[in-house]
């Protein structure tokens, strides 16, 4: 049988599966692919009155403008630093949390822990940053009071000194998202067969060993998929929180691509420019994703496509 025939047979046999896919395809086609032609405004001089198609072409003008920005490398560097730091800290911690929660025997305490850790996710960024500003205040903040009891100076300027900016950003993100991000792993862990656990216990494996050899392999595919997707966000640092944490003192480390898009493009209705920067951003992101995916496919046999 030739490869083609085989494929045809498979397609015929699984026609129902294509039907299953249809709703998603229609949805994505309508709401994602149909508007996608809007990307061309990155290569145009867009004005609202002329519309997307009617605006004159600008070629690569906006891209070169961005690359020649005096702060281009600084902004790119800041973005990479923040997102890599977030990845290194923010990726493994939810997994650890999920494994620990999964190991709790007391059902009530288990539920309690899950619920509590997941709640911070719902606090809006504005309030989160406002709270950080109050709690970390060098004048009257709880954190500094606590630090002074522990022998610290008690007037550390967490929100002002630029050397703290990345830590503040990343760890507040961990605080907010760790519980939420662990949910998917907790769900994945329910699929672990108890027989394997039992067998390992009989073999004399302790808890840590069972986690390493039973639990982790079970959630490895999920981990890899999420890692690949996280890598594909290497240039996307969300704009809102950075923007709110930004002040005159920390701009040299806190200006990232998304805040720059906001200030340069959206605030001043320069749609073509902001679309161009966004496009550049996502081309890089997508390339990283495809590369990481390829590596993963080779190394672990798991990948997105």
């Amino acid at each position: 049988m030739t490869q083609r025939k085989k494929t045809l047979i498979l397609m015929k046999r699984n026609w129902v599966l294509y039907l299953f896919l249809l709703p998603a395809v229609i949805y994505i086609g309508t709401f994602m692919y149909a508007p996608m032609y809007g990307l061309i405004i990155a290569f145009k001089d867009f004005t609202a009155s002329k519309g997307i198609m009617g605006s004159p072409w600008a070629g690569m003008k906006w891209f070169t403008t961005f690359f020649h920005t005096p702060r281009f490398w600084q902004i790119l560097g800041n973005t990479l630093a923040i997102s890599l730091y977030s990845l290194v800290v923010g990726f493994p911690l939810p997994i650890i949390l999920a494994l620990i929660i999964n190991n709790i025997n007391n059902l009530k305490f288990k539920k309690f822990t899950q619920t509590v850790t997941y709640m911070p996710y719902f606090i809006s960024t504005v309030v989160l940053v406002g709270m950080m500003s109050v709690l970390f205040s060098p004048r009257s903040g709880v954190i500094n009071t606590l630090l002074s009891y522990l022998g610290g100076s008690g007037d550390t300027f967490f929100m002002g000194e630029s050397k703290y900016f990345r830590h503040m950003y990343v760890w507040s993100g961990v605080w907010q998202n760790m519980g939420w991000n662990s949910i998917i792993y907790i769900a994945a862990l329910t699929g672990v067969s108890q027989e394997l656990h039992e067998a390992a216990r009989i073999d004399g494996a302790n808890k840590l060993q069972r986690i390493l050899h039973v639990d982790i392999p079970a959630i490895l595919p999920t981990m890899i998929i999420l890692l690949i997707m996280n890598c594909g966000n290497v240039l996307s640092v969300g704009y809102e929180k950075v923007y709110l944490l930004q002040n005159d003192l920390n701009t040299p480390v806190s200006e990232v691509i998304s805040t720059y898009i906001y200030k340069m493009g959206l605030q001043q209705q320069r749609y073509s420019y902001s679309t161009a920067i966004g496009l550049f951003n996502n081309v890089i992101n997508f390339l990283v994703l495809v590369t990481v995916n390829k590596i993963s496919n080779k190394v672990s046999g798991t990948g997105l496509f």
Partner: protein
Amino acid sequence: MIKKRELLKKLACAGLTACMLFTMIGCGSGSSDSAPADTTAQKEEAPAEKTDEAPAEEAASEAAPAEETSKEPITFDIAVNKHTHSMCEDFNEQLAFQMAEEATGVHINWIMVPAGSTEKVNAMLTADLPDAFLGLISESQIASSMDSFLDISGMLEQYCPHVLADYATIDGGLDLVTWSDGSVRALMTGVETSYQDESPANLFINKVWLDQLGLEMPTTMDELHDVLIAFRDNDMNGNGDTTDEIPLKTSEANWAAKIINLANSWGIAGYDSGVSSHYFMVKNGVATPTLDTPAFREYLEYMHMLVEEGLMDVESFTETNDQFFAKLKSGVCGVALCFSPYAMMPEEVASQYEPIVKLDVDGYDYVKTGHKNQLIANKSGFAITSACENPERLLEWWDYLSSDRKIKFTMRYGEEGGFWYEGDDGKIYQKTPEGLAEDFTVDNYKYTNGQMGNGTLILKDEVEIITKEDSYSIWFKTNTTEQVWDMMQDEYPPTRLVDSAKLEERTFMETDLFAYIQNFTATSILNGVDDASWDGFLAQLKTLQYYDWIQWYQDYIDGKF
């Protein structure tokens, strides 16, 4: 088992419904487009009833326009900014619009856009133009999308005689709203000037504390320094703690508390509350840089000294506006830079403060940040779009709303006798309206019954008189402005519309330049300036096009565009 099977059935059903939902969207719009059509039909009917009920106020007959010719009903869609304070669900409930409909036959279908929906406005601009925008469009939006708005310059004479007559009384006249190609794309809203706001930020000192220490009101920066030290070292608020007082409070989070205002003592002043308006000054028609001067450096050094000695709150650079409010309210600030104590603090705290009029520094002339007779009308307030098929009628409607002082105030604040009344001397006065409650404040009243800043233009001479008894807080601010008025600049960049290419040229320089300057200013105040950092600053100004930026303003002043 049975339960399970039932569950499966349910799931299958849900799946089916999902697929059906899809066909609904896929196959079209048939079902969904009837709904909006219905609502518009209803809306068109509703007002007819309303106008019948509307009490035919004398004002309506008084102000009725001369032409009675074009009274056949017509409906326009106007997208309008809905203020957060407004509890009005449909602006057709407002008296001014009922009167206008009566007089001109023009019915408005209001598209209410809540505050802060810039994205929505941008989407509408490209994809869904209404007949007009009221209070939603900025000058730069018109500049960058000129053809979306109708050039009404040719129609004004015929259809907007009252508006033209009003503009003729303003310095600059119709030119204020005319673009470089000679077109007029929008009409002004709001008030022409607002005296009490002309000096945005002022220094206020706690007079009670000053008296406690037996100190004189400071008149120079050196004296201020001494007073601040005394505030720092004593337990001024008497709570047994000498460390909780903040001798000098400024804040970068608040629009009227930015530390740059203190540079006034070194002769550096801005023409509005924005930080960047301090970056150059117009002197004898020349845009003069301020940042590369010894004065600016001395200002930075003085501020750094205050930080070093613990006289200033370093959190000023990072705090939120909420924190700023809280610090002021709790009465721990000795000297505070703000709009007005009464706007920021409870009355018993605010009454302790008095304005510091002037603080001199040897060798410099004090200049106050502010703008005398500043035109604060919104020059892009009412903009008719190219989608409007019958702009003449809409302009007539607008002209009716501008036709006399009373209708203007009705559009601004609601009916006469509510928030405003005409005194025996023929002037307009403010009063406290009836029916206020905790959940319906005076702000709610004004924004629910009137358009406030989106109303038709109110001229300088028409503005209502606010007495000390009516609103002490506004009176206090007016009084403060009076005291500093003479020290404000006399020269400003002109207020002229700039086309988009030129505007672009300037704003492109600004993002990077301003970010750098603000960072340098803040770090210098916190950590000090030395010769090396100062020279670095001067060099960076050049690379970041500071002088090109000033040249842009020079060309603007010279009328080159």
